[in-house]
């Protein structure tokens, strides 16, 4: 069969090709609706509904406070330990929720992925944003408690908190793209992610103070510890919410600003790698699901 193709193909597009996250973000209206769907249906059919968003962290907080603050005596070592604990905990919770949701997002949307072409990055991104919406009530509680403890918000403090959130969200999208893409062919990814999340709680100073790590390990291990983007994020939350309510008996870790920028840089690199892997594997999603 002889075929005559037009010489000028500039008006044509290749179906199924996108520019990744950038294209996904241009579907702003759909993204909004997907987020709405995620938040509306999250507690669908439960009587307490969004109250669970308060109950779960409250219960978690209670257990940690009892064990670490009371039995292990951190209450005395760290000023305002409840605020210290809760501000770190919500940072890690945001990461866990966002990363976990994003990892499952492609498999959860099997029907759509197999039938209609959309920039598939939409699913992990909306999953992360849904997790962020879900995190806001926890921030609200924290702010109220902090105000009672004599917290005065400062510009630097707010900036630290926002930078912390930015690091967590960037990291969660990057890792979510990576593991979400792998999860399509190998559901092992889902289990691996749970393992990573288990480590995340303990490899950053949520339940203890950074000084305890610094005392025990050699300097280069400690630097590695501080380079963990989640450590920076947790410390940025501490800096924003907790530090100003204390007498300063537990100082902030050294070079927090520098390590925060390193953390942000690492998160951005992970985001780039995640996007690259996602794009490579995307072509096989429909047939592997």
């Amino acid at each position, binding site marked *: 069969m002889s075929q005559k193709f037009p010489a000028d193909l500039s*008006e044509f*597009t290749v*179906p199924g090709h996108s520019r990744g996250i950038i294209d996904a973000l241009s579907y702003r209206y759909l993204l909004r609706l997907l987020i709405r769907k995620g938040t*509306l249906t999250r507690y*669908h059919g439960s009587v307490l509904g969004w109250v669970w968003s308060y109950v779960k962290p409250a219960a978690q907080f209670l257990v940690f406070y009892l064990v670490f603050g009371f039995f292990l005596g951190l209450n005395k070592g760290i000023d305002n330990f409840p605020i210290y604990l809760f501000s770190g905990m919500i940072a890690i919770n945001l990461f866990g929720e966002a990363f976990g949701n994003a990892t499952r997002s492609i498999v959860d949307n099997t029907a*759509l992925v197999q039938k*209609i072409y959309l920039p598939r990055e939409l699913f992990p991104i909306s999953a992360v944003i849904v997790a962020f919406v879900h995190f806001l009530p926890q921030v609200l509680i924290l702010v109220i408690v902090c105000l009672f403890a004599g917290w005065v918000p400062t510009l630097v403090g707010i900036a630290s908190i926002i930078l912390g959130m930015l690091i967590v969200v960037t990291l969660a999208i990057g890792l979510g793209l990576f593991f979400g893409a792998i999860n399509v062919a190998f559901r092992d990814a889902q289990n691996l992610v749970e393992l990573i999340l288990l480590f995340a709680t303990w490899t950053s100073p949520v339940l203890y103070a950074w000084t305890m790590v610094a005392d025990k390990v050699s300097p280069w291990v400690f630097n590695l510890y501080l380079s963990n983007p989640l450590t920076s994020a947790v410390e940025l939350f501490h800096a924003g919410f907790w530090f100003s309510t204390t007498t300063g008996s537990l100082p902030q870790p050294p070079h927090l600003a520098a390590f925060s920028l390193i953390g942000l840089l690492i998160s951005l690199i992970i985001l780039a790698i995640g996007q690259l892997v996602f794009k490579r594997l995307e072509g096989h999603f429909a047939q592997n699901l």
Partner: protein
Amino acid sequence: MPRTSDPALPRIIIDSVDKTFILRHTHSFKESFIAKLQKKKTTTSFSALSDIGFTVQEGESVALLGYNGSGKSTLLKLISGVMRPDSGRILTRGRVAGLIEVGAGFHPDLSGRENVYLNAAILGMNKDEIDRRFNDIVEFSEIGEFIDTEVKHYSSGMFVRLAFSVAIHTELDILLVDEVLAVGDAPFREKCKKKIQELTDQGKTMLVVSHDVDMVTQVCKRGIVLRDGKVCFDGAVNDAVASMQGNGA
């Protein structure tokens, strides 16, 4: 941009496209290990499409015919972008919308109204377009007052009617139809056929996969017959139907 309205410019170009599926028989290390021991093959490759090439002109309505497993649906998935060809290229011009298993994006816990907005957005419409067409969509679906009820309470007929109605009302240049016309009761099917006819009359480009010979001969002018992943006939739709039935028996 001098030649935007060039009438000779096709809507779909398919250029020597191949698609092979690799079926994995083993899904874990244990299974692969046992399969190795028993010297069984762990994968089979299956050529779904080989060396497909044709173009579809502006305003043409083309029926893709063929028996089960001939690669029709795979070809539609390649054109919609859900899958990518292994080699060759596919190019489309304008907005592609698929009536491919309608209702894929429906969420049972959301109301009909919310699902209309969500799915229309999934199919590529923006808020203004949906607002403008919302009443048409509801009217066509005959859902009426149930539009604010959660979709899980709908009968299967209502569900399909609403889903179809959303899909058919999207703004599009190229419509891909896969077997969905077998939905609903006879009057609704008739209505769908009429709507599709209307779209062809408006000069929309259409690619239809269906086993309903009566319908495709009514709606389409050109027919392409696929057999074992190859094009074996391309011409007038009546001849295509005859070719498929003549050789297939």
